[in-house]
């Protein structure tokens, strides 16, 4: 059974008052909604982790919901915030983890990740896109990327920094 926004807002208001049964129903509904929300945005293998992250944030910040306002825009804002956070962590992790011994779990995961990335990367300037693709996705060092693109090492770093900021902004304003 799917609940409409008004019903979810009522459940959340009850949860704020301490009603555990309403909260359990609400979290289950949120879980389904979040799984759909993230389906085309992140690799399938990471959806559960991110859904749990968002549910934990929802729990920690449940006082910030205004019962007089719609519920789903509130949930979507938290989901988007956590998604950007995940994106940043992934990029930081990729800097450390990407290397010769990089393991790939499934083709589908890689394709989905690349599809969602491709949409976002399309919003970057060509030099930023190239620098991020080479260093953060292909795993080249800054020096190798500089040699490959003809940009100076400093410029590669600047393009990566500005590109990541633009990516985060693109996700936030989605």
């Amino acid at each position: 059974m799917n609940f409409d926004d008004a019903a979810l807002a009522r459940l959340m208001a009850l949860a704020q008052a301490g009603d555990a049964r309403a909260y359990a129903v609400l979290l289950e509904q949120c879980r389904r909604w979040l799984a759909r929300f993230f389906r085309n945005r992140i690799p399938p293998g990471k959806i559960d982790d991110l859904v749990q992250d968002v549910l934990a944030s929802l729990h920690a910040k449940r006082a910030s919901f205004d019962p007089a306002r719609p519920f789903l825009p509130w949930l979507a804002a938290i989901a988007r915030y956590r998604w950007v956070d995940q994106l940043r962590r992934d990029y930081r992790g990729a800097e450390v983890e990407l290397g010769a011994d990089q393991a790939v779990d499934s083709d589908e995961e890689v394709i989905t990740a690349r599809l969602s990335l491709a949409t976002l990367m399309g919003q970057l300037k060509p030099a930023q896109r190239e620098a991020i693709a080479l260093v953060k996705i292909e795993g080249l060092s800054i020096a190798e990327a500089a040699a490959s693109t003809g940009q100076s090492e400093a410029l590669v770093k600047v393009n990566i920094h500005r590109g990541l900021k633009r990516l985060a902004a693109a996700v936030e304003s989605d």
Partner: protein
Amino acid sequence: MSVERTIEALVADLAPVTPLRPRRGLALTLAAAVLACSAVIVVFGLRDDVRALAPEPVVIIRCLLLAVLGCASSHAATQAARPMVGRANNGWAWALAAALTVPAAALLLFMRLMWSGAAAGPGDFDFSLTPWCFGISTSAALLIGGALVLWLRGGAPTNLARAGWLVGLASGAFGTLAYSLHCPSNSIYYVGLVYSATVALCAVLGRLVVPRLIRW
């Protein structure tokens, strides 16, 4: 841990909460602004014309513009504590545009002065008070911004950069307002240049520092 186990754990941990009220955040910010103004008055004293309840027009204008800018940006900052997609709160931008009329007027007057070759009035270009303006305004802004940040940490701001700008703008406007009650200058050039630079400095500091303090 599976999602089901996470949900069970969260339900088990549920306790009643009081919904966040942005009006309380706004009230706290205004209280901090009043405290900052009082501190400036006690430590440095009021302008003579303000004490006599007959302030110069330029003092009335600058105080009102700074107060409106501070209120509008504080309101937007406290609203930012509640996550919401697709809801703009841009009143602060209009208040900022109104406040920018002062430096714009100063620039136009300066150009007219240059064009006509007339002599400037006494004290028109006296910027010797600038270090005091920066020092007192930013100290007051620190108090006001600190209160706002403390309150925001209890919320869930999702656009940290925007929240940082707004906190800086609000605290800078109120901090400069506190200083303006003491500031002896009546020069439109001084207000247009030094006050604007002080508010801008606070906004930039807010953008740089606040996101790290309110990240969740």
